């Protein structure tokens, strides 16, 4: 058993931010479907069984509450990750060759990696959803205050286009959510490590 320091997989502040974000994003998506159904900007409705069916006013109240929650948790995670407390697996240093190699491996169901590190595919996905959430908050602000944040709307071509942008960004985050959920269930110990922060077992640390 080696004696080198292995960081705790996920410190408490990181797990708190993660679950606050996960809960608020899930809530934002389904209350957003309720809001979307009040006047679908695309030509279809979201099946009622998938939405909480709260009614427009209550759906908006939840959506804005969860929006603030996501912004606060996201800000805390950003400060923690990039500034104050960096003891979480790194997202930087994505190598294109490594990404391709990992995707090829994944097709052969080989996805092993040192537990204290992220795969490069993971880094790409996490950075992507990070950007998508940032854009979702900005486009959400633009829909909430289209006069005060007119510049945002001008950037994409007006209010009605912004509604479509916000929806498509939601779809990309929902797709991430599904992949992330499946991988978390499949990867041994992943759910535990995010729930209670268990440390890598010696075997796993040696790869």
């Amino acid at each position, binding site marked *: 058993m080696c004696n080198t320091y292995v960081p705790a997989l996920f410190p408490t502040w990181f797990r708190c931010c993660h679950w606050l974000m996960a809960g608020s994003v899930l809530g934002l998506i389904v209350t957003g479907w309720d809001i979307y159904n009040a*006047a679908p900007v695309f030509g279809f409705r979201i099946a009622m069984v998938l939405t909480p069916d709260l009614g427009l*006013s209550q759906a*908006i109240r939840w959506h*804005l509450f969860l929006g*603030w929650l996501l912004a606060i948790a996201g800000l805390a995670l950003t400060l923690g990750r990039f500034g104050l407390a960096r003891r979480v697996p790194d997202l930087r240093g994505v190598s294109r060759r490594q990404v391709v190699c990992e995707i090829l491996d994944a097709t052969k169901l080989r996805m092993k990696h040192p537990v204290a590190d992220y795969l490069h595919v993971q880094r790409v996905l996490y950075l992507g959803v990070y950007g998508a959430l940032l854009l979702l908050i900005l486009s959400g602000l633009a829909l909430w*205050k*289209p006069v005060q944040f007119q510049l945002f709307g001008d950037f994409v071509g007006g209010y009605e286009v912004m509604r479509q942008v916000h929806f498509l960004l939601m779809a990309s985050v929902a797709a991430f959510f599904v992949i992330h959920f499946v991988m978390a269930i499949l990867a041994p110990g992943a759910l535990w490590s995010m*729930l209670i922060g268990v*440390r890598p077992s010696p075997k796993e640390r040696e790869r």
Partner: protein
Amino acid sequence: MPDPLFLSRRQFMTRVTVSGALGAASAGFASSSVLHDPVLDAVSAWNDAVQASLFGPDRRAQTYEPDDISVPVRYNGILPQAYVPRIDPVSWKLKVSGQVQKVTGLSLGDLGMLPQHTQITRLICIEGWSFVGQWSGPRLSDVLKLVGADLLASYVVFDCADGYHTSIDMDSAMHPQTILAIDFLGAPLSPAFGAPARLRIPTKLGFKNAKNLLSLKVTNAFPGGYWEEKGYNWFAGL
């Protein structure tokens, strides 16, 4: 001596219990309106304050060209279109009361005497849909000055012929694009679109644009509104 790299049995049990309790608490919060409604009320009040500070008294809603006007325009109201009240425009007077020097009634002629302003702006419904239309009429700020309203009062309240009512903050009431519209698309308003006069305020959501006006009141007592009492955010700024 426990291995510092691993959780002890006690740590493990504590953390599992804490996670489980937090999960159960969140589920309880989401499903019990007794628990979450006070929080959602507080967030809505917080959002009122945020919007009041974001509001720029001189920041204007985007204006459009005549070619951009939506065809057809969508009717919306608390009554089906056939039941919209029809008001005799000749005998109609807008009752003005509250913190004003002159408690009075304003006829369409009185409103027509004030400088008229035409705007082509987007009306955005809280449901998400929107349309571009053209409205004309006097600025609400000119009407308020005409009746000697206390411009330091907090709210302006509108009552409508169909029982609808709503209210806005004084800063938004004094905004240059806030008008008492008497014309829509170049012709006098039709009953369905607010005759004889309606509030047209492009810096707020559609439900603030009260139609078929009966009275206007200046007050410091928080007045609420029809939809606001059903859970829509009060400030409803854009």
